[in-house]
C-alpha cells in the first residue's frame, strides 16, 4: 500500500527536476525582465507619488496636475481618437484582405504583405515627407505650382497619420487573419451553403465564431503597433506637430525634455492603467463571445 505513495513522491520529484532545468534556462531572461521592466515600473509608481523637490510623499498631487494639464488632455483625446479610428479600420480592412486572399499560397504574398513593415522608419518618414510636405508629390498633383499645402503640418495631418498606420500594418494583420480564416471548418460552411444559407449568414454564424478567438491577439498586436506610430510622426513632424496628431508619446517625450519626471511617471501610470483595463475588458468580451458562439 505504501508503493503508490512512493510512486507519487518520485513522480513529483521527477517533474520538479525536469522543470528545474527550465527554470534555470529562464532565469537570465527573467532577471533581465525584472531589472529592466518590472523594477522600473515600481520605480515609476513610486516617483509618481513623490515630491520632486523635497522627496517626500506627494499623494495624488501629480496625478491631479497631469489631469489638469490641457496639453495632456489634448494628447489623450487625440490618442483615443487615433485608436478609435485606426484600430477598428485596420482590423476591418485586414480581415477583408484575408477573406479575399486566404486561398492564395506562396511566399510572394507574404513578402508583399510584410514589406511596409520591413521598411525602416527613417526611410519611410523621408518618403512620406516627399509625398506629403508642401510642394511634395501630392501637393503638386492637386495644387500645382501655386499650391503649397503641407499635409503633415496642417489639418490633414490626422489623415496622413491614419494612412501611415494602416499602410504599415495592414499586411501584417492580413497574415494573422489568414491563419484565423483558414481554421474555419470548410465542411460546416459547405453544409450551410447546401442548406441555403447566404454568404452573410454563413459569415456571421460560422466564420465569425471561428475567427473571434484570434481577434483578441490581433487586436492587442494592433494596439501595440498603434502606439509605435509615434516614431513615424516624430520623424516627420518633430516634437510639436500639428495639434491633431499631438499624441501621448509626444507629451511624455517633451516632459522628459523639460525635466518633468514626476508628471511623466504619473501620466505613464494613468496610461498603463487605462490600457490594462481596456485589455482586460476586451479579453473578457471576446472570451464571452467565443463561448456563446461555441455553444451555438
Amino acid at each position, binding site marked *: 500500500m505504501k508503493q503508490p505513495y512512493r510512486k507519487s513522491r518520485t513522480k513529483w520529484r521527477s517533474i520538479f527536476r525536469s522543470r528545474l*532545468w527550465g527554470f534555470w534556462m529562464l532565469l537570465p531572461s527573467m532577471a533581465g525582465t525584472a531589472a529592466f521592466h518590472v523594477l522600473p515600473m515600481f520605480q515609476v509608481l513610486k516617483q509618481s507619488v513623490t515630491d520632486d523637490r523635497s522627496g517626500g510623499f506627494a499623494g495624488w498631487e501629480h496625478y491631479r496636475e497631469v489631469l489638469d494639464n490641457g496639453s495632456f488632455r*489634448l494628447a489623450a483625446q487625440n490618442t483615443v481618437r487615433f485608436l478609435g479610428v485606426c484600430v477598428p479600420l485596420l482590423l476591418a480592412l485586414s480581415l477583408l484582405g484575408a477573406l479575399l486572399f486566404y486561398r492564395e499560397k506562396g511566399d510572394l504574398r507574404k513578402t508583399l504583405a510584410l514589406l511596409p513593415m520591413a521598411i525602416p522608419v527613417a526611410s519611410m518618414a523621408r518618403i512620406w515627407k516627399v509625398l506629403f510636405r508642401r510642394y511634395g508629390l501630392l501637393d503638386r498633383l492637386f495644387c500645382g505650382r501655386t499650391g*503649397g*499645402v503641407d499635409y503633415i503640418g496642417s489639418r490633414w495631418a490626422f489623415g496622413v497619420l491614419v494612412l501611415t498606420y494602416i499602410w504599415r500594418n495592414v499586411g501584417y494583420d492580413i497574415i494573422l487573419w489568414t491563419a484565423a480564416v483558414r481554421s474555419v471548418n470548410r465542411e460546416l460552411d459547405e453544409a450551410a451553403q447546401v442548406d441555403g444559407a447566404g454568404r452573410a449568414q454563413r459569415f456571421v454564424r460560422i466564420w465569425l465564431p471561428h475567427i473571434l478567438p484570434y481577434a483578441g491577439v490581433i487586436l492587442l498586436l494592433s494596439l501595440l503597433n498603434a502606439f509605435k506610430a509615434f516614431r513615424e510622426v516624430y520623424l516627420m513632424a518633430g516634437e510639436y506637430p500639428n*495639434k491633431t496628431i499631438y499624441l501621448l508619446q509626444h507629451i511624455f517625450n*517633451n516632459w522628459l525634455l523639460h*525635466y518633468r519626471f514626476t508628471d511623466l511617471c504619473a501620466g505613464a501610470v494613468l496610461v498603463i492603467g487605462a490600457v490594462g483595463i481596456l485589455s482586460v475588458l476586451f479579453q473578457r468580451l471576446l472570451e464571452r463571445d467565443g463561448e456563446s458562439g461555441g455553444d451555438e
Partner: protein
Amino acid sequence: MNRRRMKKRVVCGGMLLSLLLSALLAGCAYGKTGGMEADGQGPGAAAREPDDYVQREIGLPKELLQASYTVAGFCQTGEETQELFVYNRTRSQFEKYVLTPASGWEAAPCGWLDSAARDGSPGSAEVLCRDGIYYAQYEGEDGKSHLIRSSDEETAEELPMDGWERQEGAVYYPAVDRIAVLSEHMAASTLTDGTCQIHRDGTLAGAFRCGESYSLAGFGEYVAALSEGNTGVCLYNAQRMEIESEIRFADPAEDIPQLFMKDDASVYLAGDEGLKELKTDSGEERLLIEGSGTLFSDGGCFPLWLEKTPENGFYVLFADRDRSSARLMEYSPAAPGEGGAPDENAQETRLVIYGLRDNELIRSAISHFRVKYPSVDIQYEAAGSENGAATDGDLIRALNARMEAGNGPDLLVLDGIPVDAYVEKGLLADLSGVLSQSDVAANIRKACEQDGQIFAIPTRIGLPILLGTEDVIERADDLSQLAAYADQAALPYYVEGTVTYRTLIEQFYPLYIGSILKDQSVDADQLRRFLSDLGKIADAVGAVEASDFDNSRPARWLGLGSTSFAVAILRGMLFDQATELLSYAEQRGDYRVVDHLFLPYGLLGVNAHSGQRELAEQFVLEALDLQVQQTEYLGAGFPVTEAALAKWRDNESSRGGAILDPNTDSYISFDWPDAEMRKRLFWEISQVETPVPQDSVVKEKLMTIGEQYLRGGMTLEAAVQEIKDEVEIYLQE
C-alpha cells in the same frame, strides 16, 4: 532515462561554456583596444612624452591692470632681465617695464618709440631686441611699414627697407606681419602676400614663399618660417640665401603654430598642443609642454613671445587676438617629486562643465581657472560639438537623465537648455551671493533676478537693434507705426538679393516677442497686429518665399537709403555686418535698441546638487573676471561686467573700411567704432533691462506658420489661431 539526462547536461554545459568563451574573447578584445588607445602605441605614432614643467603666472605691472593697452614686445636683455613694451592707450604713449628677480617690475623710459606713437598706428608696433639694439616695426599713417632702430633708447633712426614700398600700379603697400632680427645688418620679415623677405642693410637680399605670415623666427644665420601650406617649417640660410631644409611636421595640427628660435639648433613651435621643439639637424619633433592644462590650449590666448630662462625653462607672453590683454607665464622644469604624471591614487578634485555647444569664453575661463587651481581636473563637455548626429533634444534628455540619477555636471552652460524647468525643479543654485563678489553690471543682474534670486547669469550679451532714418527710429517702439510708415514710403530696393518671409520674421521676432508672449500664454491681439504689420512690411520691401541670394545681411535686402530701415543683432563688432550697418546708419540715420532688450549668451548656472559647489561658484567668478571678460574682438557679444565694459569703452583702437551705398553708387568710408560710438553703445548697454525670450519652439512655430500667412497660404485669423493653439500646447506642457 540516464541517456536523456546526460544529453541535457551536455547541452547545458555546452551553452554555458560557449557563453564563458565569448565573454572571455570580448574581454580580451576590449582590453586590447583600450590598451592601444591608452598609450597610443599604434603603428607609426611617434613617442611624445612631454617633459615636466611647472606653470606659474607672473603678474603684469600694476599700472597695466586697469589701463587699456596693446602689447608691443617682450624680450630678454640680460640673463635675468626681461623687458615688456606696451602702448598704453589710456595715456597714449609707449611704456617699458623691466622685470628683474630682485625688484620685480619697474617702469623705464622708451622715448625712442615716440615716432611710432606719433607717426603711425601704435597698436600695430612690434618691438624686438638683439645684441643690445632695439628695433620696432610699425604701420605708418600712410599705410607703409616702417622699421626703426635705437641703441640708446632715446633716439631712433629709420631703416629704409626695400620691398616695403608700394609696387608700381598697386593701390596699397604690402603689409608686413612679423619681423625677425638676425643681426645688426640682417633682418627677415613676412608679408601678408605669403612671402618672406631677407634684408641686408635694408637691401632686399632674398625672398621665398612661406605659409602663414604671423609665424616667423630667426637666429644667427637661420630664418624659420612655415612652409607653404603650413605643413612644416622652412629653414632658410640667410648667408647662402637659400632654403637649407624643409622639415615636415610629424603630425600636422589644425592650428598654426607660432615659431621661436633661441639658438640655431632648435625651432620652438607654440600652439594648441603645447610647446614643441623641432631639431633643425635631424627634424626630430618633441613635445616639451603639454597644451592641455596650460594657456597654450586656451582658444582666446596666443603665445606671441618666448624667452628662455637661465634654468632651461621658458617665459611665454600670451595675448589675445588684438594684443590688448596679456599674461606672462613661466614654465620651469619640475624638481624631483614636483609635477610629473598625476598620481592616480591621489584623490583628484574634478569639475565637470557641460554645454550644448563649444564656448570660447568658457575655454578661456578654464585656462585661467587652471592656473589658480592647478590640482583641479576640469572636464568640459561640449555635447553638441562632440555628438554631431544627435539633436539638441536628444542631448538634453540624456543630460536630464544624468541629473535625475544624481550624476549631473557641476556647471551648466545653459544656452538652449530649458532654464525655467531647472529653476522650477530646484536644480540650479542661487548665485546672488556669489555675484555680489563680482562686478556684473547692475541692470543685467537685475534682469536675471527671479524673486530676489539669480539662477543663471549670462557671460556675454547681444543687442537687437533697429537702424534707419530719424523717422524710422522715432517709431521703433510701435511696429504698427513702423508698418504704416513702410507702407507709405517708397522703399528703394537693392538690385541683388531679397529678403525671405522667414528671415523677416526672424529679424523682427526678438524686438516684439515680449509683447506677444505674456504669462505663459499668447496674446492673440498682439500676435494679430504683429503678423498684420509684418505683412505690410513684407509687401513694402518685396519679401519673397525663397531667394537664391544670401539675404542674411540686412543691408542687402532691406536697402539702406533715404527712407528705409534694417534690423540686426549687434554682436560682432569688427567687420561684421552690423558694424558696417551701424557706421552707415551713423552717417545716414540712427539706430536704437528697442524696448531696452538684450540677448543673453553663455548663460552659466551651478548644479544645486553638485559635490563641488564652492569650486563651481569660484569658476563662475573666474568667468566674470576682467581677464576673461575683457576683449576687443566681440564676436561672441559684449562683456557683462562693469570693468570690462569700461575698458572697451575707453579703448581707442578702431578699424577702417568702406561700404557701397547702392542708392548713390558711391563708397562710404568709416573708421569704426570711434570714441563716440563706444560711449553710445556703453550707454545703451547700461539701459538694457529685459532679456529676449530664447525659446526656439515658439520662434520656429511663429516662423513656420507666419510664413504661410505672409505668402497667402492662410488667412490672418487662421494663422493667429493655429500659432496660439500650438504655442499654448508647448507653454502648457
